[in-house]
């Protein structure tokens, strides 16, 4: 098993005819994902390889059942794309696009939430259940099926961690990049809850970074509600306060979001924190005994 997505997940791609959308749609198909359609306004009726393109998400859903939509449209159209998917009732919406204004995202968050749907991202690499389904932009070949869950706020750092897990013999149930923005659809805690319930996940890696207090909230959850072992990593220990470190969300401001507070919170929850990614498998071995 895995969380959120598996071999049965039917996926559509919003922005499928764009440069990024078409490239990654093909890559997802190559990695075994069931892409049932794509959406680009004004290009309905066309095809990308064998994938039918529709004008709207609603049109697409008249033709096929849809479990998830992945969004590749440019930032200025991304909020409209998220809301279109939400209006059509797509249960899982993944927004890869980066650069969405925060005020828009605050509204988008509640818009999706009120319809009882789930949003992942924006500004994220997506998610993968290795060997079953990939919805996103990560290189599938560094992954391998297994029982470790991975949750991260970043992209390539996640690849680095997954690479270390795979080469040390730890396969993954599902790996999720929740996104590097200050306001994102799903938090560490939301994902930890799903991993705790998933019978095929036996441990979880949480890859956090400076900024915000989502890691602290995750630590609280782990302390009180989680039975499975967790290993942590926090990037940005050398980042100066007040500077945005690439990700819009990675900023220490107003004395909040410091790496020390996050590491302390993790440790207090019994979560060891690795100093560097290649220590994660060793810490995991200590925690799980396997």
């Amino acid at each position: 098993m895995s969380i959120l997505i598996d071999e049965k997940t039917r996926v559509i791609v919003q922005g499928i005819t764009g440069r990024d959308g078409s490239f990654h749609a093909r890559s997802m198909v190559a990695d075994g994902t069931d892409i049932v359609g794509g959406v680009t306004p004004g290009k309905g009726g066309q095809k990308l390889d064998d994938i039918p393109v529709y004008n709207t998400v609603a049109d697409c859903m008249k033709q096929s059942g849809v479990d998830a939509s992945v969004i590749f449209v440019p930032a200025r159209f991304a909020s409209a794309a998220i809301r279109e998917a939400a209006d059509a009732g797509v249960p899982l919406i993944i927004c890869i696009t980066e650069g969405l204004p925060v005020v828009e995202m605050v509204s988008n968050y509640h818009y999706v939430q009120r319809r009882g749907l789930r949003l992942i991202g924006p500004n994220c690499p997506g998610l993968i259940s290795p060997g079953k389904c990939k919805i996103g932009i990560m290189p599938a070949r560094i992954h391998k099926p297994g029982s470790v869950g991975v949750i991260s706020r970043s992209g390539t750092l996640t690849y680095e961690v997954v690479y270390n897990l795979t080469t040390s013999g730890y396969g993954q149930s599902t790996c999720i990049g929740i996104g590097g923005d200050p306001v994102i659809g799903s938090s560490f805690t939301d994902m930890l809850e799903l991993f705790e319930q998933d019978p095929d996940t036996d441990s979880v890696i949480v890859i956090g970074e400076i900024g915000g207090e989502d890691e602290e909230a995750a630590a609280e959850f782990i302390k009180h509600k989680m039975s499975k072992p967790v290993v942590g990593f926090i990037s940005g220990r050398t980042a100066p306060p007040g500077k945005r470190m690439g990700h819009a969300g990675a900023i220490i401001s107003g004395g909040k979001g410091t790496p020390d507070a996050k590491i302390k919170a993790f440790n207090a929850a019994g979560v060891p924190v690795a100093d560097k990614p290649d220590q994660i498998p060793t810490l995991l071995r200590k925690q799980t005994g396997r």
Partner: protein
Amino acid sequence: MKIHEYQAKELFASYDIPVQDQAVMTEAGEARAAADKLGGFVVVKAQVLVGGRGKAGGVKLARSADEAVDAARTILGLTIGDLPVEKVMIAPAVDIKKEYYMGLTLDRARKQLILMVSKAGGVDIEELAVERPEEILRFHINPLDGIDETGLEACLSQAFETPRLLEQAGDVVRKMYKLTIEKDCSLVEINPYALVDDDTLLALDAKVNFDDNALYKHADIEAMKNPEEYSQDEIDAKTANLSFVSMDGEIGCIVNGAGLAMATMDIIKLYGGTPANFLDVGGSSNPEKVLSALQIITRNPKVKAILINIFGGITRCDDIANGILMAMKQTDIKLPMVIRLIGTNEKEGRALLMDAGFEVAEELSAAVEKVVSVA
């Protein structure tokens, strides 16, 4: 993006948030006419994009036009938090009866906007939040619903005691909210929001920050940008579409992805080195970006060695390799360089670099250890 106090007050004025008349100048001599026009007894304030102006001597009272010129001259000679003062603002001095704080910003955890109000205005709100958090009133706004007027009144009435003050404060909050939504502000702050006679509240200071991601929507805001907010390297990096932050260490870093770039800096520190910068080349595979990144890093005289760390996903290692080779041809880089390539097209990338005589590492820890030893 940050703007100066005087710019924020101009913006406030355009939203009908009550502010004083003001004059802005770069030459001390201009202070005379301005002080005369504003009533003689004035306050002269440094316009710099950092906090702590008062403590640094950047705010002075002047009782005459002569004093105003002297104050302006002194303040224009100051450097506050690394930034030389290039502009001063002059406004009428007022008799402050009481100071409040009002700030509207994002509550990341609740995913709503949060209004913070305090009767203990004029002080550093961050200190207040730590030392006397009970003195800050909080009120949340969900932009999908707009302001809950009943809730807002309940909040403000705990700070503003008379109906006349309550009405003014409510009006200002609605305008701060309008400004935040319309211009994508990440912070709108009035500190102090001051009672200047028995029943008039004025924004005596103003701080407005904007969401960089939303600047494409607001040409008027973008036009207010101050070049001194960023170092020359940061500006050049932005032009080249690189995400860059200057640090003061010795190892220049080029990494793809922000999380990995931060982690790479952390590991350099762990091995006893110091990072000279944060640099994320982003997800694309454009060799030109690597060239620009190397040019920016190598002109920093403190840099003693360079670490390139690429985990190829969308980024192709062979494109990165080509960028490095291009840079070696176009610029004379004498600094030791440690390259770590892994992921998409790593074999091709490694082959290109090894043919040109470079060593290419596979593991991150080994690469960092190496670069620290040669720096």
